[in-house]
């Protein structure tokens, strides 16, 4: 056997290890789509709380924190949040499905399952934690809690997909922790974390793994 053959063998082994343990269908465009949805819906919430104007972040935060949890406005915001979640996950799924078709990969295998389980366990914990915050009326911690839990979930699931997800997770955690010290600017941190970072990392992933 010559060197070239050995080299081919090593390359093949490496690719097999990657393919069998990581969900490589995850598309960068999923991030771009989810980020765009987050920015649109987040901006709408900003505008809605500000009574039809984009008031300063601190004013908006004060409005938001003064809302009684059972008020019509708050329920409307919860609906917007649920819509954002469903639409972001839906569009993320769509682009990943498309990517798997294009690359001829199976979308549902052990690595996808591992990725989703490891993503959603911390994410659901974070969701329940945030609902408890709402229940106790501690709304000022919502932006930080959602960012930190989401970052931990990404970090946890990153072992089963592209490396970029690990760095996205770490960025979200840092952003969430910093936002704890800038309570009045929660909406801005939220837009950067769920909107901008998704788009930036999504484009990075797209450039690295999908562009031909």
């Amino acid at each position, binding site marked *: 056997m010559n*060197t070239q053959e*050995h*080299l081919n*063998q*090593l390359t*093949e*082994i490496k690719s*097999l*290890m990657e*393919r*069998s*343990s990581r969900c490589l269908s995850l598309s960068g465009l999923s991030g771009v789509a989810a980020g765009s949805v987050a920015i649109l819906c987040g901006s709408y919430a900003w505008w809605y709380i500000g009574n039809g104007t984009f008031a300063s972040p601190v004013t908006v935060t004060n409005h938001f924190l003064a809302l009684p949890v059972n008020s019509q406005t708050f329920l409307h915001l919860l609906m917007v949040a649920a819509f954002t979640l469903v639409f972001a996950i839906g569009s993320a799924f769509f682009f990943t499905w498309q990517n798997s078709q294009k690359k001829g990969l*199976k979308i549902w*295998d*052990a690595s996808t399952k591992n990725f989703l389980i490891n993503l959603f366990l911390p994410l659901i914990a974070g969701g329940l934690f945030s609902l408890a915050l709402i229940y106790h009326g501690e709304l000022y911690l919502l932006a930080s809690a959602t960012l930190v839990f989401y970052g931990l979930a990404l970090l946890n699931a990153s072992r089963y997909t592209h490396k970029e997800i690990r760095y996205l997770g770490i960025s979200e955690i840092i952003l969430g922790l910093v936002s704890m010290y800038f309570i009045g600017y929660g909406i801005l941190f939220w837009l950067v974390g769920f909107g901008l970072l998704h788009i930036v990392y999504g484009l990075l992933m797209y450039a690295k793994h999908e562009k031909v």
Partner: protein
Amino acid sequence: MKHIIDNLSKLFDSRLRLGIMAVLMVNDKVDFNALKEYLDASDGNLASHIKALEKHDLIIVHKQFVGRKPKTSYEATPLGRQLFQKHLDGLNNLISNVKQ
């Protein structure tokens, strides 16, 4: 040069055996159908290589029933992991030696 070749264990002289070990190195347990899909191999061919690896205690076979269906999955043994790692190191050495 001789000691490098020694590390290239005879056990891993087929492409399929290398593939099986590669998949089992990064996954805890893998069932037969998943292996078949990753390696793009036929039932008979895969089964005979699995048997050879099992005979040398490089992998363990787990048999269990899911409902009424038998399900067979495979796991690399510590010995299998060690030998495969050695084999990879051997390949790497060989290549870097030639490059120098």
